[in-house]
C-alpha cells in the first residue's frame, strides 16, 4: 500500500536580499495512515519550513524549488490554488505553537470552529454550531455551549490549544501537522494535550507530523523519528531503534546533552564542534562543522544510508 504522504527530494529556498538561504535541502520521508512521524531539530534546522512547504504556505522570498509532495498519490505542488484550499484545513490541518496567535481575537470560539465546518462541509449556521459544540466536548472542554460564546482571551493557554485542536479536527483530517503544539504550555497541561492528541489520533486513525525539539515527547508519542539539521535529515528511524541505537554523531549529541530526571551527572556532554563559537549561524551546515573523522569528504554530502531495516543515517563514518 502506498503511504498517505510521500515527500521526495523537497527543497525550499529563501531568496533574501542578503543571499540565498537553503532552508530545506532535499528532504525524503513518508507517513502512513495513522502513523506519527516526529521531525526533531533545533531552531533554524528547517522543520517549520518543511511543514509550511507541505501546505504550500511558504511566503516570498521563500519558495519550494524542487521535489514532489505526494498526498494520497497526488502531487500537492501541481494542484491549482482552489483545490489546494480544499485540502488545507480539511484533509491536512495544522496546530501551531502559540494558540493565541492562531485564533482570531475578535471572533468567538464558536464562530471560528463553525467557520471551518461551513467552509469545508457546507454546513448551515445551526448545524455548524452544533458541530462546534460537539468538537469542544471531544477535546475535553466542559460546558461547550457556554464556551462557544466566549472569546479567546477569556480562555487559559491550555484551553486555547484545545480550541485550536478542535478546529484542526473539525473536518476529520487524514493528516495533522502539529508544530510544537505544547511548547508554550506548562508541563501538567502539556501532558494533558499530548494525551488528548494521542487519544484522538487513535480514534480517527489520523496520521500526525509532529514537529518538536522535546525528545521526551518524541519517545512517548512518535512511531518514527527524523532528526533534522541544516535542512537535511541526518537520521531517520523507528522511535525504539533511534533511541536504542542513535548512530549519527548529531543524534548522539542531542540525546547525550539533555538532563534526565533521576540521573544526576556532574556535567552535561556538549555536542562536538558547536561549542562556544557561532557555528549554529543560519545556513551553515552541521556537516561543515564536524571534525575530520565524521566528515572526511567535505565537499560532498554523505547519502542517507540504510544501516538496518528502516534505520537511515547520513554520515560518512561507518
Amino acid at each position: 500500500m502506498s503511504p498517505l504522504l510521500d515527500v521526495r527530494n523537497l527543497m525550499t529556498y529563501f531568496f533574501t536580499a542578503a543571499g540565498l538561504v537553503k532552508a530545506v535541502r532535499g528532504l525524503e520521508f513518508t507517513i502512513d495512515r495513522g502513523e506519527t512521524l516526529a521531525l526533531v531539530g533545533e531552531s533554524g534546522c528547517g522543520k517549520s519550513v518543511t511543514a509550511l512547504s507541505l501546505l504550500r504556505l511558504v511566503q516570498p522570498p521563500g519558495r519550494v524549488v524542487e521535489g514532489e509532495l505526494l498526498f494520497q498519490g497526488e502531487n500537492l505542488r501541481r494542484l491549482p490554488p482552489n483545490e489546494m484550499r480544499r485540502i488545507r484545513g480539511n484533509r491536512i490541518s495544522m496546530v501551531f505553537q502559540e494558540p493565541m496567535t492562531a485564533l482570531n481575537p475578535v471572533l468567538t470560539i464558536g464562530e471560528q470552529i463553525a467557520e471551518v465546518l461551513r467552509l469545508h462541509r457546507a454546513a448551515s449556521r445551526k448545524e455548524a454550531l452544533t458541530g462546534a459544540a460537539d468538537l469542544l466536548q471531544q477535546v475535553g472542554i466542559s460546558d461547550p455551549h457556554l464556551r462557544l460564546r466566549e472569546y479567546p482571551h477569556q480562555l487559559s493557554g491550555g484551553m486555547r490549544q484545545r480550541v485550536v485542536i478542535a478546529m484542526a479536527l473539525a473536518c476529520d483530517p487524514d493528516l495533522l501537522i502539529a508544530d510544537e503544539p505544547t511548547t508554550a504550555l506548562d508541563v501538567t497541561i502539556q501532558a494533558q494535550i499530548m494525551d488528548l492528541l494521542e487519544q484522538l489520533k487513535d480514534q480517527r486513525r489520523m496520521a500526525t507530523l509532529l514537529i518538536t525539539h522535546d525528545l521526551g515527547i518524541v519517545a512517548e508519542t512518535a512511531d518514527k523519528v527524523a532528526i533534522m539539521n541544516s535542512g537535511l535529515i541526518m537520521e531517520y528511524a523507528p522511535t525504539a531503534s533511534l533511541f536504542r541505537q542513535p548512530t549519527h554523531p548529531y543524534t548522539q549529541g542531542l540525546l547525550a546533552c539533555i538532563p534526565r530526571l533521576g540521573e544526576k551527572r556532574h556535567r552535561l556532554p556538549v555536542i562536538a564542534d558547536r561549542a562556544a563559537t557561532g557555528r549554529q549561524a543560519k545556513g551553515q551546515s552541521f556537516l561543515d562543522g564536524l571534525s575530520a573523522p565524521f566528515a572526511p569528504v567535505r565537499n560532498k554530502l554523505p547519502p542517507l544510508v540504510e544501516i538496518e531495516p528502516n534505520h537511515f543515517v547520513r554520515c560518512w563514518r561507518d
Partner: protein
Amino acid sequence: MEPLLEVRDLAKSFFSAPGPLGGQRQILKAVDGISFTLRRGETLGLVGESGCGKSTTGKTLLRLLEPDAGAVLFRGENILQRSARTMRPLRREMQMIFQDPYASLNPRQRIGDIVGEPLRIHRLAKGRALRQEVLRLLGTVGLNKEHIDRYPHEFSGGQRQRIGIARALAVRPSLIVADEPVSALDLSIQAQVVNLLQDVQEQFELTYLFIAHDLSVVEHISDRVAVMYLGRIVELADATDLYRAPRHPYSEALLNAVPLPDPERRRARRLLQGEPPSPLTPPRGCHFHPRCPYARDLCREQYPVLADQGAGHLAACHFSAEVGRFRNPS
C-alpha cells in the same frame, strides 16, 4: 553556618485595574508569605508553573520590586530597611540573569559597554583597566577578544546569554538570581550554558537562586529545590530527596507529567486533572485541593503549614505521609 540570605514571610501583591465600568479592584497575591534560606555556595532551584510567583520572588529578593511584607536578610541584615542610596553598594553583591537574551541586552550598546557598565557604575575600574577586566570576563564566559566591539544582534542566543552572565559576574557578586536562564535556548546550547553556570559558580563561589520550569534542568543544577504553587512554597527539600520521593501531591504530579526520553519506559501516565485556578481567587483551604488525588474534607477547610516531614524535608500537606501512591512507575 550562617546562611547568605534568609527570606521571612515575604509577600507581594498586585492590584488588577478596575474594569471600564468601575467595580472592585482585585488583589492578586503573587507571593503569599514565603520563607526560605540560601546557604553560601549552594544552588536553590525554584520551580512551578506560570503564574505561581517564582519570578516575582526573584525580583523581590533583589528589591527590583518592593515587597509588601516580610524580611530579606542578607548576611544577617534586613535589606528592606535600607534606603535606595545605601542599597546601592549592596546591589553589587546581588545580580540577576534574565530569561530572554534578546530582550535583556541594549541593542545600541557594544558588548564592551554592556559588560563594563556595572564596573563603571560601581566605580570599580575605568579606562584601560576597565577594558582589561571586560576582556578577562569575556574569556571567562567563553567569548573572544574580538567580540568586545560588536553589537548584540551579531550574536546567537547562546552567546547573548554568555554576555548576560559576563555582565552579572563583572561586579563580583556573591548571589545570582537566574530567572529561566536556559529555557529560551536550543538543547545543545542549553547544555553549554548550564555547564558554564556551574563552572563560574565554582570559580567565583557563587550562590544561585535558579528559577525554572524545566524539572530535569532544575534537578541537574540544584542542591535543594523549592516547589511553588499559587504564591506559596508547597515543598522544599534536598534535590535528590524531592525527586526520588516527593512529599507534596503537586510535586508528584509535576514529576509524573515530565515526558521521559526513553521509548521503552512509555507508560500510561497519571495525569493531573484540570488547570491551576486563577491566582485572583485561590480556592479555600489548601490551594491545591481541587486537583489533588489525596484531598479530603480537612483539605477543603484548612491550609496546611509547611512542616518538616522528616530529615529537613519540608512539605505543606495534611496527608504528606501518603504521597507516593500516585507516582508513575519508572
